[in-house]
């Protein structure tokens, strides 16, 4: 890390928005699917736009829409949002070198705008020595606009396109994760933690089908394994 102070500029926000362009493409089918599902449960365009704008979490919205009733079961959909999005709680602390230098709306607004895609993008920027924290909010705002727009568009297209479950279009959401994961690979140190994360998450997904605890369980198991191993090595070397 350099000693250059962390700043928050309009230029940084613009650059974040520009860099998130490829992610917008990957997000489009996901947003469309969300809109199609909302139309399917009888929501209005205004309602799905509001939902996407307020919640701004694709996986959680799709899970909630799959169990949406009239009226919706408030406890179930709130719990679904909480469990699916628990992973966000692990993301904020990783960006602490930027976030710790922000206050007020910049800090709490940046946290609101954080999703998987722009978090990974910002992390790459931060690790490459980027000191402009506006990057996180700028990329988040671009993704937010695209998310609200594509979910509204999906609702309008509604009855025309009805991709069946398992249609390859759904792969794009996963594809974005795989591509970003490929850039996170640092070499041999990652073998053990990634293997533990993969096994624990796969096992949890089998044990508790229909829930999303497996994401947090795998992430914690893998990162704790890697972190404790590194500390033990350091102590042995010292």
């Amino acid at each position, binding site marked *: 890390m350099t000693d250059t102070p962390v700043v928050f500029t309009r230029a940084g926000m613009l650059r974040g928005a520009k860099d998130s362009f490829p992610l917008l493409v990957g997000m489009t089918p996901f947003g469309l699917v969300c809109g199609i599902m909302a139309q399917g449960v009888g929501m209005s365009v205004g309602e799905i736009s509001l939902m996407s704008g307020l919640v701004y979490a694709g996986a959680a919205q799709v899970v909630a829409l799959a169990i949406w009733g009239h009226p919706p079961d408030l406890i179930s959909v709130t719990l679904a949002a909480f469990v699916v999005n628990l992973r966000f709680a692990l993301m904020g602390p990783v960006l602490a070198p930027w*976030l710790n230098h922000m206050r007020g709306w910049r800090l709490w607004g940046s946290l609101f705008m954080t999703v998987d895609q722009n978090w990974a993008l910002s992390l790459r920027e931060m690790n490459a020595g980027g000191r402009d924290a506006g990057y996180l909010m700028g990329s988040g705002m671009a993704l937010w606009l695209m998310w609200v727009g594509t979910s509204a568009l999906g609702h309008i297209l509604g009855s025309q396109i009805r991709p069946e479950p398992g*249609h390859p279009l759904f792969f794009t959401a996963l594809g974005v994760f795989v591509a970003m994961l490929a850039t*996170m690979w640092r070499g041999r140190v990652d073998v053990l933690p*990634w293997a533990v994360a993969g096994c624990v998450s796969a096992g949890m997904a089998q044990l508790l089908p229909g829930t999303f605890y*497996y994401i947090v369980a795998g992430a914690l198991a893998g990162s704790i394994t890697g*972190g404790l191993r590194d500390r033990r090595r350091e102590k042995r070397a010292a």
Partner: protein
Amino acid sequence: MTFDPWNLTAFVLMAIATYACRAGGYWLFRQISPSPTLRAIMAYIPGALFVSFVVPAIIKGGLQPLVGAVATAAVMLATRSLPLSITVGLAAAWAVWLFR
């Protein structure tokens, strides 16, 4: 354009739950000063988190996402281009779907 009060209530509750995750993790973390062990653990969160998202999804989806994921990762490692890797991955997944 109609807005159902029950739906609106559900949106607000979901938004609160989601924001509690987004801001709560960071807020809690700021209350403590992270030890070297905690910092070492955090260095592994990004990879472990994305692995935990991807692996169960591939197991659930079978051959199609597996082929798509391998193609995406290979192109990403070779070119470092996100749009290209996702396009090739999608094409590979689509091919499996067509010839299933």
